[in-house]
């Protein structure tokens, strides 16, 4: 038992000390957050665009009282006594960035003759702000001419959103289909990637031992099973470490960034532009999104995710180890041998994408119980209230399969790592796996 700990320790340390581990573990989240930050910075810079805009307001829409949105930092200068045609050619030389011309308008008709002059295309955000401002002004005029107060108008206007109440017998919760499917899909995807990446890492580790011919030295000190399990557990621990660091880093960086860029924090967004209908819409969506996030059974998800992550990894790692043990120094050979092991993982992924759309379909139910696909499929399905009996059967089957495959693959591994220069067929592997002793 002490020996298996030594092996785990070595497998773990060798990988964690590698530069590539440091790069992927620290580098990837930083890249993600930096990318995220750049996106936000670009978005935010639009909001803080400062322009000096010359306005000739012949309709008196804005000059009579302007409702500028708070995020609009531009300066509007009303110009009188100038012809639009003459200002059109010299506004730039007078120190203005744009020239807005509002001709007299008939508020009973659709308005479409307002012009914004510029040297180069105006930023979309700037154009939107001006449009919203003019829309509000026209709306206000129309309300006044119809003798309707703003309050009355607000009470008339309808903006329906349907709540999805989830009744699971215990409590009533708000659910949001979009949030559920995003969470389900990302969890399933993550498990799929983990099984492939860390599975092949186990395979390469075993191949390294075989090709370097250290396997024979090792098995004269430890049992082949210890060597195999030590490697699998060691690499699994590397995976868990990487995840833990990622989570800590992403949370930490998010906190740091939100300190610098207030808008990075989602809760700050709703106050950005009060009064603007479009933003109000977004606020509602955001609130719904947050309600959706709250509706996700996070405890259950985390438990299942960790269970199926470990289960799926252990199940496939032993198979990858067996494959690694039978191939001799040929990368192509490894690829063709590994294909049948990859198949069920990919199949699981395909079923999982279906699970997100149709969680109750028979194929999905089967996929979430069948142990070779359940780690990926069940995690995708867990959002949609899986009957407890199915969950228990699925978990039980997975545990039994892990033990069965570890027993089976250990026998293949034991023979394979000492076999050189001979191409091993599937038939032979099966014979090794099922022979006695």
């Amino acid at each position, binding site marked *: 038992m002490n*020996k298996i700990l*030594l*092996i785990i320790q*070595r497998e773990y340390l*060798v990988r964690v000390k590698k530069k590539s581990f440091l790069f992927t573990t620290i580098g990837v989240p930083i890249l993600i957050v930096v990318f995220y930050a750049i996106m936000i910075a670009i978005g935010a810079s639009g909001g803080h665009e400062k322009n000096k805009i010359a306005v000739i307001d012949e309709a008196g829409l804005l000059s009579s009282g302007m409702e500028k949105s708070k995020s609009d930092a531009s300066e509007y200068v009303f110009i009188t006594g100038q012809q639009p045609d003459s200002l059109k050619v010299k506004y730039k030389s007078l120190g203005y960035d744009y020239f807005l011309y509002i001709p007299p308008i008939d508020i009973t008709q659709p308005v479409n003759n307002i012009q914004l002059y510029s040297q180069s295309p105006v930023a979309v955000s700037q154009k939107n702000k001006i449009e919203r401002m003019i829309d509000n002004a026209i709306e206000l005029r129309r309300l006044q001419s119809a003798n309707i107060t703003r309050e009355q108008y607000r009470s008339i206007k309808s903006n329906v959103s349907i709540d999805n109440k989830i009744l699971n017998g215990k409590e009533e919760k708000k659910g949001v289909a979009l949030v559920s499917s995003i969470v389900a899909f990302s969890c399933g995807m993550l498990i799929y990637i983990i099984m492939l990446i860390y599975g092949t890492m186990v395979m390469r580790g075993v191949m*390294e*031992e075989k090709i*370097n*011919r*250290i*396997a*024979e*030295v*090792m*098995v*004269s*000190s*430890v*049992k082949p099973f210890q060597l195999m399990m030590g490697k699998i557990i060691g690499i699994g621990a590397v995976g868990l470490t990487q995840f833990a660091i990622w989570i800590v880093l992403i949370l930490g960086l998010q906190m740091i960034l939100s300190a610098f860029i207030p808008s990075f924090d989602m809760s700050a967004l709703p106050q950005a532009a009060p009064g603007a209908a479009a933003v109000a819409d977004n606020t509602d969506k955001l609130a719904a999104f947050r309600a959706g996030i709250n509706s996700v059974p996070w405890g259950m998800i985390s438990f299942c995710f960790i269970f199926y992550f470990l289960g799926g990894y252990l199940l496939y790692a032993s198979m990858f180890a067996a494959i690694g043990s039978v191939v001799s120094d040929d990368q192509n050979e490894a690829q063709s041998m590994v294909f049948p092991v990859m198949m069920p993982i990919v199949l699981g992924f395909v079923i999982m994408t279906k699970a997100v759309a149709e969680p109750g379909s028979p194929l999905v139910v089967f996929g979430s119980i069948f142990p070779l696909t359940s780690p990926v499929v069940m995690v995708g399905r867990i959002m949609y209230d899986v009957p407890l009996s199915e969950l228990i059967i699925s978990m039980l089957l997975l545990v039994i399969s892990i033990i069965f495959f570890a027993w089976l693959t250990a026998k293949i591994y034991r023979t394979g790592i*000492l076999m*050189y220069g001979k191409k091993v067929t599937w038939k032979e592997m099966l014979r090794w796996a099922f022979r006695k*002793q």
Partner: protein
Amino acid sequence: MNRLEVKHLKKYYTSQKAVDDISFSLAPGSIFGLLGPNGAGKTTLIRMITGILFPDDGEIIFNGQPFNPDKDVAYIGYMPEEKGLYKKMKIGDQAIYLAQLKGLSKATALERVKHWFIKFEMQSWWNKKVEDLSKGMQQKLQFVTTVLNDPKLIILDEPFSGLDPVNSNLIKDEIYKLAQNGSSIIFSTHRMEQVEEICDHIILVNKGQKILDGSVNSVKQQFKENIFSIGLDSNPGNHQSEAFEVIQQKGHQLLLRIKEGYKPNDVLNHFLQQQIGINSFHEMLPSLSDIFIKLVEGTPLARQFQIASA
């Protein structure tokens, strides 16, 4: 008490009888040569003794007790023919790791590794990686890792391949020292001159069976063909004799075989009677290489696959 006793050991694969009823014993402190052509079953035999493979039949007695791989591997050091180390691992760490797997505590392992590294002048290698070493250096390192646990039974498969004469001698001396301290050594090689030099006892294995067993000297005696070399004063005109036949003549030097029923003295008498002076007279024992070739000859170069009937 023998260090190791192997009794009627068998290992059959579906395609061939790799080891077919081999028995031998090994005394403490002896250096034992395990010889045989390629594919004779040596590696399978060694793998059973090191606990890597289970015998199909037969018994292994280690230090008077039935061999228990779990416990006894701590007292065995095995250097396989195909040497292997973790290429990316630091040499010092690697040696300590391998010693720990043999059951040494970390402190003891560190102490032993330091001791051997100083002995072999390898201290400067500590933080290097195996991939930075030459083949001969790797070989030295592999030897060190094999004997770190102070094993009672050391199995060396081609330990000198790739080593220069200086390093070969270094390791040879260590092998002698280990044997003097009571370790038993199984030495497997195809280099017959090394076997003659180092081993006290040999067995020859062919097609999974033991075909020769004995001390180097007794084996040579067993296969001697009564060939003598005699150096004479003058050219012997007539060397016809009932006692011997001449195989080869080079000037005054004769190579002759003594016939059945005659003794070396009869040869000497023959020349003395002819008044020919004798400068030298000695027996030509066959070399192990000759014996090996003689016994193994006729065996197809590559072992044919046969169906095991058991």
